[in-house]
């Protein structure tokens, strides 16, 4: 009798626990990496909220014409940037003013966008959603559309316990998905973990990198997260003053955020306006194309002397930053199972 009672109690407890159970996820910091900047306490990861974020990321319902999704400008196979376009385009083929940045290792970002206009990952999505050239929508109308849909009330209940669809839930779910986009399994990473070794050419390239590039493109994130002026000539068709637009400080004129170099093999074209189609062009810029603007970063005041062969080696090293586990990870991909229903 006592045994049966114990079994019954355990069964009841399990049944009760299965209601509203969400699976928490631990954010794994790769060994030796700095602490993430994102405050996970305010938005603890759960499998259901990440999944909701992933579905929203790939859903064109966020745009006013229901054709453009986040994925339209942030394709996984290129490191979540807009491949083949110098300036990204949005709804009705409207062209924007910049190249969409990669979405890699965002938990370590202190600011977002090329000029740091967005100060927190949770409010990042508001920018493309509301931008006339991108999704041309309002978050308020997104909420209306999600409420009307067949699947979102269910998905929000699964993720949050009730079907209340609010802007903060939409934004925080998107954040959760984006936070999972960690790239730390390139050949470079396995070499650092002493699991493999560079070729001679790659090793040469690595040493050249450390001498000439690492002060801004600091390991292991391959960015120092700062705003720098890397001597790009001003494109007078755009007149993009970069960070100055946000701070209105003249010292910030023509400064842009240092992007990560991870997966650089596939995230072309390069720079905030996508002006360089190949890594070779980037090398040539640094060796002979730097314009000595007043706000040119100190690290670039002395010229970078590098031979043609050395450029090849440097590029060989940069190719070791390609992380196929990241670029083809199905957990980051289009949720076919949801959208095909």
């Amino acid at each position, binding site marked *: 009798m006592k045994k049966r009672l114990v079994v019954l109690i355990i069964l009841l407890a399990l049944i009760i626990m299965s209601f509203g159970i969400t699976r928490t996820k631990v954010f794994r910091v790769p060994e030796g990496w700095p602490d993430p900047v994102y405050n996970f306490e305010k938005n603890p990861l759960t499998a259901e909220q990440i999944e909701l974020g992933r579905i929203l990321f790939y859903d064109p319902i966020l745009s006013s014409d229901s054709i453009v999704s986040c994925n339209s400008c942030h394709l996984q196979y290129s490191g979540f940037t807009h491949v083949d376009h110098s300036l990204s385009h949005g709804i009705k083929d409207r062209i924007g003013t910049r190249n969409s940045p990669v979405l890699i290792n965002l938990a370590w970002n202190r600011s977002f966008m090329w000029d740091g206009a967005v100060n*927190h990952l949770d409010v990042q999505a508001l920018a493309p959603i509301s931008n006339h050239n991108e999704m041309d929508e309002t978050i308020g109308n997104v909420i209306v559309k999600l409420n009307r849909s067949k699947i979102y009330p269910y998905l929000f209940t699964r993720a949050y316990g009730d079907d209340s669809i609010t802007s903060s839930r939409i934004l925080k779910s998107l954040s959760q998905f984006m936070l999972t986009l960690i790239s730390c399994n390139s050949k470079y990473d396995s070499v650092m973990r002493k699991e493999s070794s560079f070729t001679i050419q790659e090793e040469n390239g690595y040493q050249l990198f450390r001498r000439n590039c690492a002060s801004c493109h600091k390991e292991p994130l391959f960015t120092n997260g700062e705003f720098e002026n890397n001597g790009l000539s001003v494109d007078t068709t755009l007149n993009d003053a970069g960070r100055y637009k946000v701070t209105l400080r003249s010292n910030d004129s023509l400064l842009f955020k240092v992007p990560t170099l991870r997966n650089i093999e596939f995230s072309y074209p390069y720079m905030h306006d996508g002006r360089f189609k190949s890594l070779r062009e980037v090398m040539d810029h640094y060796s002979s194309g730097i314009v000595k603007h007043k706000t040119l970063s100190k690290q670039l005041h002395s010229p970078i002397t590098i031979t043609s062969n050395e450029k090849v080696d440097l590029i060989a090293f940069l190719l070791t930053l390609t992380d196929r586990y990241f670029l083809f990870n199905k957990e980051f991909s289009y949720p076919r199972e949801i959208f095909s229903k």
Partner: protein
Amino acid sequence: MRNFIIIVCFFFTTCSFSQHSIEFIPVYGFQSFTTDKYYPINQTDSVKIETLKFYISSVEFIKRDVVVFREEKSFHLIDLAKPQSLQISDLPNDIDFTHIGFNVGVDSVTNVSGALDGDLDPSLGMYWTWQSGYINVKIEGKSNLCRTRLNEFSLHLGGYRTPNLSVQNIELAVKNTQNMKIYFDLHSFLTSVGLQDQNQIMSPGIAAVRLSEKFAQSFNSREK
């Protein structure tokens, strides 16, 4: 039994259900004020306000320079299109104080805290999506002084980064601490804007800071 009932009733009346409340009252000089109505701005020109929304935050009760109460999660979006929003109630009733303190706008820390809810929800039209930050004060309307399309003016005052920090702190003396009435004089504010020259502010900067100061100066409790 009868005595008991009387005592119980007496107990409930002294245990006042009325709590401290703050009512924000827009005025135009000595006149009352409503939106969508033209008021004279000088001898020849007039102005009407169609939209007026602003944040009141960090409400405090102060007695002799000491803060005796600080409202928690103190963020209120005052919207003249929503009359109930003009009153802040649910404030404790058992505190003795002489002054009330509050911010017009949202503080810097809150501006970097990501996606928030309630009155701070970014879907309420008081958040800049293209450059993170709250619009502290939003005033839109028409005046013949504005040589703009449809004579419209649009003042979106925000900015949380120095030197463009536009949130303003105000402290006012209050006598009737039960039902506090805080007036904000739109005549004094609008005449200080200079609508003939300044009719579009859509981002942080010097102009936004100056007008935020002027707007805050228009608040008073009509008490010494």
